């Protein structure tokens, strides 16, 4: 058994000069006819290892991760639900993985039919009239959405409309996106109960308003009760409404952004529709639009027509959509992720969509009630939780010196992934907890026990400042990481 330190040995340090995974490269290639002036003369440092060494190295590395498949992962705003294995294996069928993106549609009808049906299902779930699957992550969906809003105003003679209203509780991507598109992000405050402050909103809208970006239920874990009023204020001012679909799981099959008056939505398929998070991507940020923004959708989208009497699927691109904001990816976005979402939606089906919201909400409200009853303070005690909720540890931090960070790290030692900490920024010492619908009551009960145990131990004088103790490494020196920047291995 290796010690904990040698377990961080790099694949380069396991290399031996001349060692090969012989089965993995063509045999005996000779020289090329490329002139020497174009050739590289140095030998870059890539591993020299056997196939077994590589397999063992990355198997062991994987075992250092927490994951949904191995731990409860109540990470608020991330919807860490079970990723069904069938979604993965069916997206990896050779007919799909081998298809070249520029291959003719005659050799892609099976794939394109899945994509067209996915577009239709997403339209139905969101209540929008058009869907483009091409954005490669939520942040790119946001970019597409705000770009469409900008394009709409420009083509309607209002280039001066460049202010995007963003609640102060919003994801950091919202203001970052606004800036990326040359807009000004205008913050609007949240009231004590978690709803947007309507009077403040009325104060910031005006002739320069391009639109508002709203997450509903919000990042505070509550449904925006004044949503109809918010819509009216923004629309009366000439602005458009952007729905950040990060929390779509909470209302899936129950309420539709299109019915709430939104003009554009992005969906995080890796949240609501259970495609993998993959240790930080790939995501997939399909967008849906209402009538007003339909001409501006990013391309390509898939269309269904008829050819020789049978159904035929094809791309819609530049020629057919001259007002489109354009292409956001080299081909059509994260196609393989879209296939996974398609399989998931077909397995969940019509009635199942609503069950996602119902049971995600049931689990969140149950966990919220149990933690409240166990003595934890809720950030919004008078509100229903949506699919997530916030515990604030401001008292524990003051009285027991037990911060949100400490609880997060102590949970790791009890084999739970930490909830989201210190987000949203406006709740002090917060834990944003999202259990998702795929977790059982027993898991939630055990998690409550762990939280109670941590608080009890803190009350008894135990400090968690140095937790975790049982993970592959302990708290890391972030300051050193930034100051003595070491971002690649260099043999000494």
């Amino acid at each position, binding site marked *: 058994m290796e010690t904990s330190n040698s377990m961080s040995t*790099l*694949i380069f340090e396991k290399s031996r000069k001349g060692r090969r995974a012989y089965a*993995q*490269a063509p045999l005996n290639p000779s020289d*090329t006819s*490329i002139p020497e002036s*174009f050739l590289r003369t*140095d030998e*870059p440092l*890539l*591993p*020299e290892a056997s196939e077994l060494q590589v397999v063992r190295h990355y*198997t062991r590395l*994987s075992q250092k991760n927490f994951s949904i*498949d*191995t731990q409860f*992962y109540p990470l608020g705003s991330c919807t860490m639900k079970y990723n*069904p294995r069938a979604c993965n294996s069916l997206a*990896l069928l050779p*007919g799909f993985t*081998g298809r070249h993106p*520029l*291959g003719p549609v005659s050799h892609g009808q099976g*794939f394109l*039919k899945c994509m067209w049906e996915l577009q239709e299902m997403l339209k139905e*779930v969101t209540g929008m009239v058009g869907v483009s699957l091409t954005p490669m992550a939520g942040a790119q969906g*946001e970019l597409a959405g705000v770009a469409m809003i900008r394009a709409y105003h420009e083509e309607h003679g209002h280039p001066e409309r460049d202010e995007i209203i963003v609640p102060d509780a919003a994801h*950091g991507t919202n203001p970052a996106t606004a800036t*990326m598109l040359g807009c000004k*992000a205008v913050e609007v405050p949240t009231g004590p109960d978690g709803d947007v402050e309507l009077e403040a909103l009325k104060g910031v809208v005006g002739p320069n308003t391009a639109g508002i970006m709203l997450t509903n239920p919000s990042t505070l874990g509550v449904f925006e009760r004044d949503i109809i009023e918010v819509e009216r204020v923004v629309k009366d001012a000439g602005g458009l409404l952007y729905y950040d679909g990060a929390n779509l799981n909470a209302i899936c099959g*129950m*309420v539709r952004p299109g019915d709430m008056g939104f003009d554009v939505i992005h969906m995080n398929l890796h949240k609501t529709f259970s495609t993998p998070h993959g*240790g*930080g*991507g*790939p995501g997939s940020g399909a967008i849906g639009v209402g009538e007003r923004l339909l001409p501006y959708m990013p391309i390509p989208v898939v269309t269904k027509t008829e050819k020789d009497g049978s159904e035929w699927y094809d791309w819609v691109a530049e020629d057919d959509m001259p007002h489109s904001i*354009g292409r*956001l990816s*080299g*081909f*059509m976005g994260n196609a*393989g992720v879209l296939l996974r979402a398609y399989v998931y939606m077909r397995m969940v*089906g*019509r*009635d*199942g969509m609503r069950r996602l919201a119902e*049971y995600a909400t049931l689990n969140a*409200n*149950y966990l919220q009630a149990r933690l409240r009853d166990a003595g934890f303070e809720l950030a919004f005690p008078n*509100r229903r939780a949506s699919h997530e909720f916030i515990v604030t540890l401001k008292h524990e931090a003051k009285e027991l010196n037990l911060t949100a960070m400490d609880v997060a790290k102590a949970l790791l030692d009890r084999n739970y992934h930490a909830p989201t900490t210190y*987000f949203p920024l406006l709740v002090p010492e917060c834990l944003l907890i999202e259990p998702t619908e795929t*977790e059982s*009551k027993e898991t939630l009960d055990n998690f409550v026990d762990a939280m109670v145990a941590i608080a009890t131990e803190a009350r008894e004088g135990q400090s968690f400042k140095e937790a975790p103790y049982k993970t592959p*490494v302990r708290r*890391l020196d*972030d300051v050193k990481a930034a100051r003595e*920047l070491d*971002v*690649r*291995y260099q043999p000494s």
Partner: protein
Amino acid sequence: MPFIPHTDDDTREMLETIGAKSLDDLFDEIPRDLIIDSLDGVPEAMSEMAITRLMRERARQDGAPLCFIGAGAYEHHIPQAVWDLATRGEYYSAYTPYQAEASQGTLQTIYEYQTMITELTGLDVSNASLYDGASALAEAALMAVRSNRKVKTGRILLAPGVNPTYEKVATAITRTQGITFERLPMDPATGNAAAGLPDGEAPVAVAIQQPSFPGTFEDVDRLTDWAHEQGALVIAIINPTSLALLKPPGQWGSEGADIAIGEGQPLGVPLSSGGPYFGIMTCKQKLVRQMPGRIIGRTTDLDGNTGFALTLQAREQHIRRSKATSNICTNQGLMVTAATIYMSLVGFHGLRSVATRSHQNTTRLVDGLTGIDGVDRLFDGPYFHEVALRLDRPVAPVLEALAEQGVLGGYDLTSSYPDLGNALLVCATETKTDADIAAYVTAMADVMGAAARKSA
């Protein structure tokens, strides 16, 4: 209910604890008239058995044609271990590694990736990846504008060999940021930048693709030195497989390119209709603080043991919000995991074998095809694994006829490079056997007129 574990008893007990009578009660803060009855447009649920059958039929329907298309996405052999390992649940179902102690697997894997990709490109620092090659050009352009503050023009010059789709994507993503993309003129004889390069246009950056989109080798040393003389940064656009053979961007010209980007797909990622892939981005040390996306650093823990963590997060959206270097948060983590395992398995020598065999196969293919009347090379110079051909007739009908014979014969350059005439871009990687190549040549001869073989 798929994937929901609750028994009726569970649900009842949980509602009791909450103090709610029914599941509907949990939604009582939502205005009633917003709640819908049903989703008629979503089909009834399918069992795993049923969806498996459906997906197999659809995958089979798309067939397994012999594919000689490249144009930015390349068919390479992917060792079985790559996706066996990458789809282990611990990699597949983990989140972004914000909780470093619980994410050392992903973090160390990305650190190893950063090492490999800086080695391949000959630059100092790599991020943890971007979405894909095309969008990476947009991020590189924005990064160049942030870094090269002396130049206020926002003008990015593109060598003629830059992938036209990359230009479209970069334009769409940066459309409101005062950035323009303009092409340097092409020398129609070579397919590369024309001899006389413009002076005094104050470009903020010059993007150079090697090998070029039409398959030629640009004189990267000349262009790089010229760009630096003009006060511009150099953005190299590379194919990672080619770097097993070709001079890396860090060695272009007298100072090297400043930023390198590219499509990472050839490193162990399946074609899969265009994604998910990943975007490579590396740069010189001095530009690191302007680099978008996640970066992993090696550091120590409380016990002094080595560990890995996200670093330089002050650049990113979740900290900087409206002042971030980019709105990007997701990288393409799983694709990078696969690429790291791929590079570990093949190593430099294996990658060079892949590159060399691809080059040789392309040579065989081009020799065969240009033996047919009406098929010639468009440019004479050296190439890697992709070559532009000139046909004596429009390309599209030829490709359609080939597809009917089960051969995807290449990429039609006509719409992206109308000046080049009837131009077809062909590619044969190491996956093609002599029989595959012969099958294409036979099919092409058939389509072009069976008896029309050149006598010479």
